[in-house]
């Protein structure tokens, strides 16, 4: 809407999806969540299903805008707008979300990793709309943490990181680290995930993970440079890993 108010966009037609009830709602299936693309951010934030099965999402949503924008904003809207630091995009990436788009030719499923094509440009054809987001919650015992730095409450993050780590027999059996604010879309730090997998969580390991994360290719803009974003990426990754461990042990809230 801001783009329309600024007359940056002047579409000839706008279709209001608010009355398409199929696009709303969170369905809990056996091993995944099916989230309608028009589900409001406020609903996701407060949803018992989300809080129970994938609390990383509600944690991240606490950083998204303000009450008034969350009351109307949708998960689909956030994913399609694809701001480089959008929290919902980052957690979708952390969860390997699968996005269903629907067009004249029917449905197709796009992995979150394939979703960002360029800045503010998702892999959506002109005749398609995003209809569903599929999230597979982590079943095994795991910890999560979401950390971001923004100048003020509700602002787009400068850099944000979402971490999920699964612990089996005192060892990290699975790790997912998604970074936002460094590129057109969220970046999964696969090298860091590989480093962590099979290792015992600990200070030295997390420090090493942070240093590796700091090597990420980061963009720059008029406000913040590449080096600064790399600095935050590294430090936040390390911090978020500690945060996830604390959350796993019941000693932390899973954010910072």
């Amino acid at each position: 809407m801001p783009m329309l108010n600024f007359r940056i966009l002047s579409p000839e037609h706008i279709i209001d999806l608010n009355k398409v009830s199929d696009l709303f709602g969170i369905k809990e299936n056996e091993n995944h969540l099916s989230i309608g693309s028009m589900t409001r951010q406020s609903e996701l934030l407060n949803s018992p299903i989300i809080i129970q099965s994938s609390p990383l999402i509600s944690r991240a949503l606490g950083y998204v805008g303000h009450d008034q924008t969350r009351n109307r904003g949708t998960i689909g809207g956030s994913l399609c707008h694809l701001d480089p630091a959008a929290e919902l995009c980052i957690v979708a990436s952390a969860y390997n979300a699968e996005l269903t788009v629907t067009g004249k030719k029917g449905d197709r499923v796009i992995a979150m990793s394939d979703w960002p094509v360029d800045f503010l440009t998702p892999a959506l054809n002109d005749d398609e709309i995003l209809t569903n987001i599929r999230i597979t919650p982590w079943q095994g015992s795991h910890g999560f943490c979401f950390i971001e730095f923004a100048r003020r409450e509700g602002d787009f993050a400068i850099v944000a990181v979402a971490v999920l780590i699964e612990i089996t027999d005192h060892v990290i059996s699975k790790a997912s680290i998604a970074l936002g604010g460094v590129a057109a879309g969220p970046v999964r730090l696969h090298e860091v995930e590989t480093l962590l997998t099979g290792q015992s969580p600990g200070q030295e390991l997390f420090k090493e993970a942070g240093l590796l994360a700091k090597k990420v290719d980061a963009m720059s803009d008029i406000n913040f440079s590449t080096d600064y974003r790399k600095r935050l990426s590294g430090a936040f990754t390390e911090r978020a890993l500690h945060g996830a461990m604390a959350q796993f042990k019941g000693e932390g809230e899973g954010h910072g």
Partner: protein
Amino acid sequence: MSVRYIGAEVQRMEDLRLLIGSGRYVDDITRDRMLHVAFVRSEHAHANIKNIDTENAKMLDGVHGVLTYQDITSSFDLKRMGQLFPAPVIEQNITQYPVANEEVCYVGEIVAVVVAENRAIAEDAIEIINVEYDVMPAIIDCRLALEPNAPKAHKNSKDNLVGIIRTSFGEIDKAFKTADHIFRRSFLQHRGGCHAMECRGVVAEHDRSENTLTLWSSTQCPYLVRRSLADYLGENEESIRVIAPDVGGGFGPKAGFYPEEIMVPFLARFYGRPIKWIEDRHEHFVATTTQRDQHWDVEVACNADGLIKGIRGEVTHENGAYVPYGFLLPFTSLTPLPGPYAVPAVDVSLKAVFTNTTPNSPVRGAGRPYAIYAVERLIETISKNLKIDAAEVRRRNFVKEEQMPYATGALLRDGSPVKYDSGNYHSCLDKALVLADHASFKDRQSSARDDGRHIGMGISSYVEDTGLGPYEGTTVRVQPNGKVLVRSGSASQGQGHHTFIAQIVAETLAVSLEDIVFESGDTGKFPHGVGTIGSRIAVNVGPSAYEAANAVKDKAIKLASETLEAAEQDLELSSGKVQVKGVEDLSVSLGDLARTLSPKAGGKVPSGFVPSLEATSYTGSNGSPFASGTNVAEVEVDILTGNVKLINYSVAHDCGTIINPKIVDGQIIGGVVHGIGNALFERMIYSEGGQPLTNTYADYLLPLATEMPNIAIVHEESPSPLNVLGVKGVGEGGTIPATAAVVAAVENALEEFNVEIDYYPINPQHLTELIDG
């Protein structure tokens, strides 16, 4: 008996209608058959207009007209706007055309005008207007603008210098030659824009029968608008009425005279219909005046004990593309020197420079925050280098209470000496430090450091000249029904004028606050006014309201003494009546006295009396009362992100006699938050080519509730000897020292890294770079 209102925390009279949505701001005003205006604004910082193709736009249904400079000048003298505040120091007095005549000098300058049935259609028309430009080089950096081969902001000007001013007194060379120490600091100061939540707007209506113009404008200075428009049109001031309706914040930039305030009334005449223009936020970023860069290179000479002997330096001031507001901003950037300190020699010069950016004019505090910031940085520098406690350096240098009134040595523009009238700077400092729990801070700081946290405390002391003259008058008139009409030349944007003026009049006349009917901001209701700027209203209207009310009281008593056949000294005012002291039954109401003084046909005005129970006064202050105070900021810095968090903020403030403590506190808190915003957030960035890059609220950051601290306030009351009430202004006192306090606190938090902040607003990334060395 009269109720004591002066000094009481009376609830505001303004609030009820605003709380229920019955405020009437300029965009709430509709007139019959009203048309709407949108302006085509330059997309280039510096260019010649080659051609404007308006044919398609004119044909759009709902469009009544599209006008360019050429279209207008065929029937109307669309000359350059006048200089509001002429001053001999202005070497190149370049003001703008209301609609650009070929050359545009900043992004946002008006190049054409569209009039349509509604704003949306007008903007539709703008989308199909084609403006062809010959782009010229733009100059944005005010220091580069002074270099010999710099692009010229105006193609025909000789260079980019607007003018030079200097404040100079005492023996500066001797001071520097004989000092034990000389310290040098250089920094860039950047203040931001207006960003009142209500943008500007104008509604104009031409009454063809009377040939009068009525303007509603979201302005701080309706009388300035009227005078300027009358001068521009060459018409009678009295046939132009300017009304400031409810105004949603002003903060300085609404105190000028804008192209739109010429164009909208012109169009009202041209089309014979009422015309409305409302600025949208996108326009506000470029079309409303602002403040931006000042580069300071200063030196301080002091003795081994930290006593300052002299301050000298040079300032480069970014002026923007035109000079609508004279040299007020540069003047107010130098005249506050040397602040609350008894410095014997000062020599600072300032060059104001044209740049191809939005023109500048004062924003809350005007130039004073720049000057106070500079002095406070020097104080901190002395403290750090000589290892003398920062509060102690201030104590040693403060003007003492016994020295009041203290002539600093500087001269005002009219040649009169700058004099601090009253104040106890030492007491304010001590009070602020107690409020901030300064005594235990070092322990808290080292404790925090043990936890890996970096907290810091910063002090900033200031003075503020308030109550700029010449006057702001008040008429007090008792009406036959006993209600008291109070009319003033002031105009409010939320400062509570109605309330505190009513307090003064109600106490004087012993009537209730609810009996006061208050009108202001309307040139049709009060003949002469100046405007709400420079923390001047309480200082000017307070005394005039007081004097007018007392004159009414005297007249009432005189008349009542005849009516009641009692001696004047046996009479008192009580509950809307004049009565024999202590004898309620022997009384006559103020309303009846008013009626007696305004008889009907065949009646008689009592001998020796002029009709009407009213009085008008223009008495203000005999000079400039100086407010003062000390602020203390406590911050925490995250050395990883460079983020600065405000933990606490303490203010000790002296604005003389306080009329309404709640209103005063409100001005201080709001002002401090504005200053914190300048320290940490507000930055208007232009590209090298002059494109505004921070022109939405996503990029231009205003302070939000979550990042602002609670602000504790303690008052000092040093009444001013310069006016009958002893009041001093307070509108800007919160903003003036705040930035310096925050920056000092950040430097204190990062002491171990030896960080010297060289510009504000503090950017987290830049802070990390300074920390990393």
